């Protein structure tokens, strides 16, 4: 197991590096001058100002040198400086990491457990009323714009019924107490969950149907096992491995959805930061956030693979 794990880690690091190259190129090859963008409409800036800024950003060096500089910085933990905030990108990202992990973690947990359970339920009642209703709910969730759902819930629960706060969570360290954090977490987490659980349900339903259709399920029934044992001991257990790998497929969905949900509820996470940064043309910050997003997806993928190796003996061979 160990050599496989090391190889996988090396693969992950290599992919992350490649992603960095890709993102870096996207930025640097963009039409238009970043400096002009930064200075905005103020075209009357003196050439020395422009030159100074260019030198400061390292834009006067050849492309490979720029990239090497960035990577070197990365090794030191330096992700560049935010144009808008004039603070290190790393610092900004770190300050927002907590709320993002809290929101993301909660949603992932809920989605995986509830989504998987519902997917299996659908598979066992395939074709019947429960399956059809759940399928309809799943596809509606899949088609739902997360930001619209967020606004709808904010309006209904926050403004109309006044049950929960909408936005205003400015306390990333949770000094206001766990209850306060929880109250603020409910709506964004509920929104993101509802908007992304559909994808999970659909995938898990397919995986479960495939597992339930396997010949060894017939064998299990022929041995005299009851339906519950057949479903939850044999089918689910053998599908768990493939279900876990699906994590790699819908993790990007949660990461993406978090951007919109955080914007709607003013949740101080990395998603909101990325959205504001993009609007402000603060590309170093967006670059940093994108790298982090890619890293999250890769880690999720890695965890899923490790999980599958632990669960499915055929993979370990």
């Amino acid at each position: 197991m160990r050599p496989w794990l090391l190889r996988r880690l090396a693969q992950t690091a290599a992919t992350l590096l490649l992603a960095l190259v890709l993102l870096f190129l996207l930025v640097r090859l963009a039409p238009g001058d970043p400096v002009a963008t930064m200075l905005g409409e103020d075209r009357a800036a003196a050439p020395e100002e422009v030159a100074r800024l260019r030198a400061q950003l390292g834009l006067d060096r050849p492309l490979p040198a720029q990239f090497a500089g960035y990577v070197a910085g990365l090794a030191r933990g330096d992700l560049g400086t935010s144009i808008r905030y004039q603070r290190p990108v790393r610092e900004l990202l770190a300050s927002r990491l907590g709320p993002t992990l809290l929101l993301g973690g909660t949603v992932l947990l809920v989605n995986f457990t509830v989504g998987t359970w519902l997917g299996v339920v659908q598979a066992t009642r395939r074709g019947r009323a429960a399956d059809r209703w759940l399928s309809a709910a799943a596809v509606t969730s899949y088609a739902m714009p997360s930001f619209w759902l967020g606004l709808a819930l904010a309006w209904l629960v926050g403004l109309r019924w006044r049950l929960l706060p909408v936005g205003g969570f400015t306390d990333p360290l949770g000094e206001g107490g766990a209850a306060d954090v929880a109250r603020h977490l409910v709506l964004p987490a509920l929104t993101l969950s509802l908007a992304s659980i559909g994808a999970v349900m659909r995938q898990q339903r397919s995986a479960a149907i495939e597992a339930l259709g396997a010949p060894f399920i017939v064998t299990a029934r022929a041995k005299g096992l009851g339906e519950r044992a057949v479903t939850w001991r044999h089918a689910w257990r053998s599908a768990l491995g493939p279900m876990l790998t699906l994590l790699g497929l819908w993790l990007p969905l949660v990461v993406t959805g978090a951007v919109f949900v955080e914007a709607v509820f003013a949740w101080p996470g990395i998603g909101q930061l990325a959205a504001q940064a993009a609007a402000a043309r603060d590309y170093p910050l967006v670059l940093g956030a994108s790298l982090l997003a890619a890293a999250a997806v890769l880690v999720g993928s890695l965890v899923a693979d490790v999980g599958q190796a632990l669960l499915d003996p055929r993979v370990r061979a």
Partner: protein
Amino acid sequence: MTPLLDVRDLRVAFPGPAGPCHPVDGVSLALDRGETLALVGESGCGKSLTSLALLRLVPPPGRIAGGHVRLDGADLATLEGEVLRAIRGRRIAMIFQDPMTSLNPVFTIGRQVMEVMEVHGLARGAAARARARELLVEVGIPDPDARLDAYPHQLSGGMRQRAMIAMALAGEPELLVADEPTTALDVTVQAQILELLDRLRHERRMGILLITHDLGVVAGRADRVAVMYAGQVVESGTTAEVFAAPAHPYTQGLFASVPRIHGPRRPLVPIPGTVPPPTDWPAGCRFAPRCDRRAAACDAPPALRPVAGTHEARCWLAPEVAR
């Protein structure tokens, strides 16, 4: 004496575009303790469905639409829930064609064998493991202790099938249904598995229902044989009777298409045409369109008529065409 297994007029229905069709259409079989009955036919004749129907394992949307399945006199078709589950694996056990896909890949062999004992309350824990080990020895698996903790993919094809047989025996069944147990195996291994089944049958006085498409498998191993075509039994009798003088044109066609090593060289004679699908069966004799001896009488569906002794055939021309 009541036969161990008594199937009468079994019918299995599946919904079709133009109303239900019956891939198993009035099948009757009888099997005694310690006897092997071979159910022979091509793919699509309904033999596998028949075997699944015995344990009420017909995959939805199919369902049993008529007939009786009696085990020692008790009708299985009327049983439900707990009672039915008590029969599965315990009084009737089943082994399947491809042990690679019929064994759960994420559980060890030992676990899967012991599961049968646990489910039926025969043994638990260490006692179950000891018993499982004995079974592995009985089916001829070397190094049983290691094999108990092995996963299916770590065993060879022949070993996997032996493991499946061990799993089937764990419930001490009276009847073993073997659906093409050797089809997925090498020829040399086939012989070993059939040998094993024979031995177990004698030692345990089990009845074996052997489903196969291979006449060679039937020849040395089965006491009685039933030939199926298009959802019906078209010929049945002792192996000696049927092999010596096949009465139904389909059976004769089957024998003619088997290449022989000994004797004069003769061309292989395939049966022209293809098996009709259950949704599109001819109104009269279902084999008539492919038969070279069809007559006007064949427009009416024939019933099983006696030929000699226990030998029966579903053909109007049967007594005359027996060679």
